């Protein structure tokens, strides 16, 4: 029933992600533990002045792959209730690009399923990031989380 509900809507958004909405989707009287993961745009000591990240995606595949990923998690943790939203577009530093909420009867399942979803997102959800810097440069981020050696301005 949950999957049917989720399938009516998109895993993608271009607006600020509402954590409250996500929590409402998974909340259930039978669930005593909820684990949430928020991935936020970072501007730390290694990032050198990232003002925002521009997120793009193969959107149709993101929807299909998220449906498969959530089904995989449901199969492993049948009692877990999972909601996930990925934001696209230009996301300023400090704001969330992804939010995952997992409610479960017990906390171990909630933590494990939530961790599984974010690890699988990194592995199989076709989304790409371009870091936009305070100096006007833009750099594609490679999967290890570090910028690639291919500044986009060489190819733009």
């Amino acid at each position: 029933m949950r999957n049917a509900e989720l399938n009516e809507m998109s895993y993608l958004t271009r607006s600020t992600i509402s954590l409250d909405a996500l929590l409402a989707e998974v909340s259930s009287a039978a669930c005593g533990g909820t684990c949430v993961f928020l991935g936020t745009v970072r501007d730390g000591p290694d990032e050198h002045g990232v003002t925002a990240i521009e997120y793009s995606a193969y959107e149709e595949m993101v929807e299909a792959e998220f449906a498969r990923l959530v089904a995989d998690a449901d199969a492993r943790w049948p009692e877990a209730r999972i909601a996930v939203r990925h934001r696209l577009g230009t996301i300023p530093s400090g704001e969330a690009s992804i939010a995952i909420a997992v409610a479960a009867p017990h906390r171990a399942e909630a933590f494990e399923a939530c961790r599984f979803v974010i690890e699988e997102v990194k592995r199989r959800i076709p989304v790409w990031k371009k870091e936009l810097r305070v100096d006007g440069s833009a750099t594609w981020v490679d999967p290890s989380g570090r910028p690639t050696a291919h500044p986009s301005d060489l190819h733009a």
Partner: protein
Amino acid sequence: MTVTGTGTATIRVRLFARYAELVGRTEAAVSVALPATVGDVVRRLRDEVPQARALPERPLAAVNLRQVKLDARVQDGDEVALLPPIAGG
């Protein structure tokens, strides 16, 4: 039911993110003689579209919204996507 087929297949190729920037376009149509694989589609693209030589020879690929290996077969009407290294999240 999957039919391997013979003759010529027209494949829609989609390019994303850095690959779209490298090639200067987000999609292309290529024709391949059947039977053909995703790898054949990539080679054909690199032959026909000048800037596509900048793409890796063995990129990550999807057919009809599903990741596949380069030896996966393609059919007429398939959508093949070439995916830069995924940076989801």
